[in-house]
Each structure stands twice: as C-alpha cells, then as structure tokens.
C-alpha cells in the first residue's frame, strides 16, 4: 500500500499553504493532491500558484495530481476547470462529471475522485473505460461495498481509500461560515481564513457534531482507519489517503508508515495518533454503521 496526501480542504493564507507543503517535501507520501476543491471564491493561491507548487512537489519525487472543484456553478468555474484539465503536466482528479467529460474528451487518464459516487462495479467499469486509472472510494461507503467493487474492478485500476481526516459530508450552494457571521457568500470577507480547521458546530448539549468549512460540511470527529489497517490490506487497497490538517500532518504520515510497515500495532498506532484527533476519532462508515461511531476492528 502507498500513502497519499489528499487535497487541502481548508482555506489558509498563501504563505501557510506554501510552508505546509515545503515542510512535507521529504515526508514519505507517494502522491500529493493539490488544488482548491471546496470553494471557487478561495483565491489565496491562484491557478498558476498551485501549478508552481505542483512543480516543486514533483521535484521531490512525489507523484502530483491536480484536484478539481467539487461543485461547479458558474462559467468561470468551468473556465478554471478547463484550464486545470489542459495543464499538460499533471494528472487530474475529477470530482464531478463535467471534469470527467473534459478529461475523457481530451483522452487523458484521470483519477475518479471521492464525490463521483462510485458504489458499484458497473460504474467503476464505465469510469475506467472513460479513462480513469485510479478511483477513490466515497467516504460513506463501507468495506462491504468496497469488497463488491474490488471483486469487479477492471484490471490495472488502482483503488484509494480515505484513511484519515474530517469526513467531507456535504456540499451546498450556501456558505455556512459566512452565514455564521450574517454575511452572504458573495461578500463573505473570506471568513474561512480565520478557521484553519473549520468552525465546530455543536449540539445544544455541547457535543461537537459537525464542522462548517465554507460550503462544505465536515464531521467534527476525525475519520481514522489505523485500527482497520489489516482489513484495508486484505481488501487490496492500493492507496491510503490522509487529509491535510494544520497541525500533525507530518506526524500522522509517520505513524501510518510505521503501522503499514508493521512497526506499530493498529491499536498502538491509533493511540499514537490521538493528539491529532481533536474531537475524537470515528470509523463507523468503514463498518457500515453511523459514520460518527468508533468501532473496534
């Protein structure tokens, strides 16, 4: 199994983004996904900045993939998408069907992202025939669903599974971070910059439940499959994805590496990761249970 660093879900100042990736130049991840996938208003890094960053990360020997926006609304969103598809250097992760169309038309191999709703082998075969060389399991899918997909997986198609990060649960036209401050999305004052790990939404009993991250809603708990590593290995997963967070990403990568190499037991790996699992860990989706649950392997 190989390790990937998924696209940054949050909105950080440009220098923080550059420093973050620079700090991971020597980190043992095989693939790095870059680009803005959540909100088209986020512009600390422009398209050329992302591509420059991609060049720098590629020069460290990592495979670099550019990820597309998940929710396309406007013509300018499409323009940015076309530009990404035509970048000429890096593979692209398609996060909605418009991207799939453009990539297939250009006869470019692509990665089928986690929001394409791949729940059955027929869909997988269709995407592979359209040019997908790798696909990412939707985070809400269980290991049972994965097993069905793996059994019908076309030859050569690689499988990637989110193994660490707050769960991307929903996308909306509305910005919930702006809403918290009684702002409209079109004049949001880029409030997301103030919340490097999103805004915690709690129940009225004070239980951290969800995370508001602009137009995206995440879990409050962090999805983590360290204790399920043996099952992931048995499921013939090729890539495990770690989602970037402001603190602890390098440490988490190291913990995953050691656990994958058998130097840490799954449980001791999870224990070691605990300092970076603010608001707790969950793995219910993997077990076919409510996503917020943490189930022993």
């Amino acid at each position, binding site marked *: 199994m190989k390790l990937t660093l998924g696209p940054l879900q949050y909105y950080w100042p440009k220098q923080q983004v550059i420093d973050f990736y620079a700090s991971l130049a020597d980190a043992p991840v095989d693939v790095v996904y870059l680009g803005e996938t959540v909100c088209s208003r986020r512009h600390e890094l422009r398209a050329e900045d992302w591509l420059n960053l991609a060049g720098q990360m590629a020069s460290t020997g990592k495979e670099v993939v550019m990820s597309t926006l998940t929710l396309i609304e406007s013509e300018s969103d499409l323009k940015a998408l076309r530009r990404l598809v035509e970048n000429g250097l890096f593979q692209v992760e398609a996060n909605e069907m418009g991207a799939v*169309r453009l990539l297939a038309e250009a006869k470019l191999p692509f990665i089928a992202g986690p929001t394409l709703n791949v729940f059955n082998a027929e869909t997988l*075969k269709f995407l592979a025939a359209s040019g997908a060389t790798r696909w990412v399991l*939707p985070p*809400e899918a269980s290991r049972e669903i994965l097993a069905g997909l793996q059994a019908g997986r076309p030859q050569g198609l690689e499988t990637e599974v989110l193994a660490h990060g707050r769960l991307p649960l929903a*996308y*909306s036209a509305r910005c919930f971070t702006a809403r918290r401050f009684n702002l409209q999305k*079109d004049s949001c004052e880029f409030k997301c910059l103030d919340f490097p790990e999103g805004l915690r939404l709690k129940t009225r009993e004070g239980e951290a439940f969800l995370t508001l991250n602009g137009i995206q809603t995440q879990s409050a708990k962090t999805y983590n499959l360290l204790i399920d590593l043996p099952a992931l290995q048995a499921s013939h997963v090729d890539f495990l994805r770690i989602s970037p967070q402001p603190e602890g990403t390098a440490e988490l990568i190291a913990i995953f590496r050691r656990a994958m190499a058998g130097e840490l037991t799954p449980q001791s790996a999870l224990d070691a990761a605990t300092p970076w699992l603010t608001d707790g860990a969950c793995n219910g989706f993997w077990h076919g249970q*409510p*996503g917020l649950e943490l189930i022993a392997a």
Partner: protein
Amino acid sequence: MTASFELVCPAGGLPALKAAVDNGANCVYLGFRDETNARNFNGLNFDDKNLADGIKYAHDRKVKVLVALNTFPQSANWSKWTAAVDRAARHGVDAAILADVGLMDYASRTYPQLRLHLSVQGSATSYEAINFYRERFNIQRAVLPRVLSLAQVEQVIKNTPVEIEVFGFGGLCVMVEGRCALSAYATGVSPNCNGACSPAKSVRFVDTPEGQETRLNGILIDRFGKDERAGYPTLCKGRFDVDDETYYAIEEPTSLNTLQLLPELMAMGVRAIKIEGRQRSPAYVAQVTKIWREAIDAARRDGDKFTPKAAWMADLNKVSEGQAQTLGAYYRPWK
C-alpha cells in the same frame, strides 16, 4: 411560447397520483417500495398492481408517469436496481429518472427506447456534466440540483440540448443532492444508498424541563420552548451552537417556493417544474398541483405581467415546512 412547460407532481401512492392527475399535472413521478428510490418510506410507493392502475389512470388522461430509480446501487444488490429498470420498462412508463452511472449504462443499453432523465441525485450542476450524460446515455432531461442562481440556470440551458427541469415547490435540500452524507453520518441511513434521510426510526421526541427535544439517533437536533411547535428533526434544519451562538446553523425549517419566478423560468427555456413531496398526503398534492396549474396557465397567458395571487401564496405557505418559504439558491443572497 411554443415549447411545452410541464408540471411534474409527486405521487407517494395511488390516491396522490389521482389527485395530481385530476388537478392538472402533466407528469407524475413515483417510486417502487424499496431503496431503489429516494423516498424509501414505510407505507409509501407502488407495487405492480398500483403501478399498472396508476399508469392506466394517468395515460387515459394524457398524463405521463415517470419512475424515480434515483439511488445508487451497490455491487451486492445491483440486480435489485436492474430489476427495477426492467419493471419500469415492462410497465411502459414514460421515463425513468436515474442517478447512477452504471445503472444508466444498463438502462440505455438494455432499453434504448426507454426515455431517461438525469435525477437531481446525479449532482449535475453544469452543462458539461449534463452533456456528458447526454453523449453517453442519451438522456433527454436533467433535473438541476437546488444550487444554481437564475442566471446560472439560464447559462446551462443555453449550452445543452437536454431539457432542463427545476424544483418549484416543496421541502428544500440545502445540500447538493447526491453529495450529502449527513444522515448516514448520524444514523447510518444514507440518502444515496438507502433512499432516506433522517429516518423516522431514529427519531425521538423527548419532553424535558427545558422543553421538548427532538433527537436523531440520540443526537440533539433541536429543543423547543413552550410556545414553539416541535418540528421533525431533519438534520440540516435543527438549531445548533456555533462559536457561542445558537441558531439554525444550516437552514431554517422552510420550503422552496418559486411561484413568482415562473415567467422568468419559462422565458429562459426551462421545460419542466417539479413539486417535491412524495411523502406528503393526497390532499397536499391536490392543493399544490391545483395552484401551480392555475399559476402556470396564468403565467403563459400574462407573461411578464404575471404576479402570483395572494391566495395562492397564502395556501402554499400553510402547507410549507415551518410555514415559511424561500427562493433558495435562485436568489443569490440566500447563498
């Protein structure tokens, strides 16, 4: 105006289907009694007998029947969804409304004559995505997720030969349909795979000294004061705390109502308007269908001079969630 403009109404059962047909629907949409559709609720939907009766009733009155098979099959239960497509084709429905790419591939190969609509659950928000489904599966119509502004809807229409259907009235998904796992996260029941959101089996109404609480799988969704009526705990319509403020953090209990936008929607070439509510009563379907029929006929007649009657708006408000209405994403400030 030469192009047709269809009123597409919900039918959770045969009485609702008849109510829709009798009150002026051009199309009714319905589902089977399982997780192959996004309103997989107890006591709802159609078996073979009801389906045959419903199709006959509708077709005798020149009304179309659309079948929603708009959830995502998994490999282990794949044949349940293909059987549902077979069944829809066998019964001679006017179109199947699909979301899953694999299932669309099956339907278009097996039944090339079966008209396909792309469900809102397909999350296609751009003409590039819609045209992809057209090229690959020959879809004839796409239902847009409730995320685009009016200008964005128009931009889609200008760039695709696919008919565009939009939501006009009813319960409002704030999230992009097909891209929401909130219910799955809280309850394990997934709109995408199980066809239900915030399921009744996970709901508890609990009386406490602080007021009535509504819980979903134990999670406190809202708490109501003495003067408030406790609403159903749909996860995204609860009150939560964010940064020391308690409010409807995602959306208020409210319904979408675009009646006032009818002339604009017609002028930009929208071909059909959908009423949400397969889980609602036949009386709801009758009332809402009747009002929208009158409104569409008036808008066709009056064009830009059309204004919704106050009585229509008042009656629609009474059957709205939380007795409140919104223009949703069609109105940019909502975003």
